[in-house]
């Protein structure tokens, strides 16, 4: 609360990236183009593209049922990782974590 919003977000992102077990974080804009990432290029592009589509679909589903509602986040747990996607009107934040240490 003492920092500008910009710095605050940067700070929080760094903290998340620094947590043990977090494999990578990706920030994607409204068109599905990744703007910030900690993973390599090909993986980033793949994740961004696929998860963007999935999130759009999920959001569409939620809003079709009730237009006043909106998607907050999406969690996909797989055998190896957990992929967490948190959404906003314009941005998508993807975090891939290995939950069980």
């Amino acid at each position, binding site marked *: 609360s003492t920092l500008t919003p910009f710095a605050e977000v940067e700070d929080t992102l760094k903290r998340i990236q620094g947590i043990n077990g977090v494999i990578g974080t990706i920030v994607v804009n409204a068109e599905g183009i990744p703007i910030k990432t900690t993973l390599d290029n090909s993986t980033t592009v793949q994740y961004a593209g696929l998860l963007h589509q999935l999130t759009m679909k999920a959001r569409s589903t939620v809003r079709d049922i009730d*237009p006043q509602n909106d998607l907050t986040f999406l969690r996909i747990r797989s055998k190896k990782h957990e992929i967490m996607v948190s959404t*906003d009107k314009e941005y998508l934040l993807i975090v891939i974590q290995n939950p069980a240490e």
Partner: protein
Amino acid sequence: MSVPHKVGSVKSKQVSSFVMQDEEEGLDTAEGEEWMQGKTLVKPPDQLDLTEAELNEEITRVLKASNPNAPQNVVRYSFKEGCYKPIVFVDQMAIHFELEGNLVHKDSDEGRRLMAKQAEVDDGGGDERPDNVSIKAGKREQKLTNQFNFNERASQTLNNAPRDISCQTEPPPRANFSATANQWEIYDFYVEELQRRVKSKEKHEGQFLNKEEDKSKKKMIQAETQNDDIYQLAKVVKIIERMVNQNIFDDVAQDFMYFEDASDEFRGEKGTLLPLWTFQYDKAKSLSVTALCWNHKYNDLFAVGLGSHEFTQQGGGMLLFYTLKNPSYPEFIFNTASGVMCLDIHEHLSYLVAVGLYDGCVAVYNLKKKTDQPIYNSRASSGKHTSAVMQVKWQKDDLDSNHNFISVSADGRVVSWTLVKHELVFTDIIKLPVIDTIPDDLKDVIPTVGTSLDFHKQKDYSFLVGTEHGKIHKGSKYYSSKFLEKYDAHFMNVTRVRWNPFHPDVFISCGWDWMVKIWDQTMKSPVFTFELKTSVTDVAWAPYSSTVFAAVTTDGKVHVFDLNINKYEALCQQKVVSKKTKLFNIEFNPVHPIIIVGDDRGHVTSLKLSPNLRKKPKEKKGQDLPKGPEVEIAKMEQLLSSLR
């Protein structure tokens, strides 16, 4: 056509024997004469058979000048007389043959012309160009200009070479547009439209402020476009951080919600404390926790005040806010100039936090504002405490609806602060009485250090103050000169005094003399006394039961008592921190069965109370157990009465 024939009016009776024909058939007669030399009489078949007499008849033939074919009865309308009149004189000329000749008199115009043309031609050569004919008509008078001398005049214009000129315009820019029409897209649009309309209404109303707004808007817009990329992520990032933490501390979160220690059944009365999350902040390593407070509105948010208890080790201080949802990093961080000694969160307006500092200042922070600075600070104002502020407590809004709080400090004063606009206005409530051992002449100089303050839950004018000398004074806001009651509580510093949340007469106190004492305010001596083997730094009542309380000591142990179950012993005495760490504060969560304890390393540990520690009185079969404060009061009353 008729062959001119000499026909004379000759009476002739000449009937040649060779010509047996009438002069009516003159032609045949003549011709017959020549080639018919026969003597035979030939009669044409259609000859009229006439008798001799008729043959001898004389027929007169007359020559007239009149044309037998000319009409004799031509009638013309005469306009003069208004009737038809016959025309007497009719043209009698009959034309038998007409032939136009091509002879021209040589003296006539045409003749002369033609003769001139003729002369030109004869001159030889002459121009081939037919268009000169008319020009040189004078020379060529001999040339014929008849209708059949046909002149065709043609002229060829200059044909311009054909050229293809085409124009290609630049095609209008094209863009592909695609969109989906969902119910929610429509909804979004309507919401935006509504907002736009509201804004435009506001604009119309506040038009005179436009200039200022524009300037500020411009600045805003600039700043936003820089930060726009990432700024919007703030909320999103926060959620993700919590999610990640939830994953990491998944087992802890599960324990917090669902775990109930089953082995409590076998332990008889005793209970345990299950450690949950530990909250720590790097930059607070050198500081010790001095105050804890839960937020009433958001039950997972709590405030931690960091400073130092030691006189010699004073530095800066911090005010941190943690939430159980994110154990790894504080939600709010405030740095203070000197160590925080106490804090209190307003009961209703949970964004207002009052803190008391070691240097005697009190400050009020507004969590809604994004600044590092408190909104009110008594630094510069008069009436500030001259010594460390030991306890602050919010009060109900005063008659002018200003917020106010009361503080007690080591300088012996109990002061009420009111938030008026931008200032803190102080009012002295009372001064702690000086103890007898101090000689008279120093009474004004050496104050009685007040260490703890608590206001009654129901009668909020009544309060208790604990002092460094071990006394507890009961006072009232309406009496500023004297205290109502004095209790000789402890031999040493009273670290905490608290009213029971349910029973109106009961309060608890603890001190450095290893004692925890429970009092009935009507009685001079304590109702219950417990000795815990080291100095007790804090004690707190449980919000769910009037007979449960917990205390922390400097040896790192938490002691939980339930008077209803065991009047003499603690139900749980558990060491919760590593060795040589002192515990300073304890607070119960108003809703969840957890407690937080603060230690001198700056860490806050959360612990879950096992079921045994949260017991409600047993239900008798068939009887509905009444819930609520009355039960608790009754419980306490029962206990007290047994001891009186």
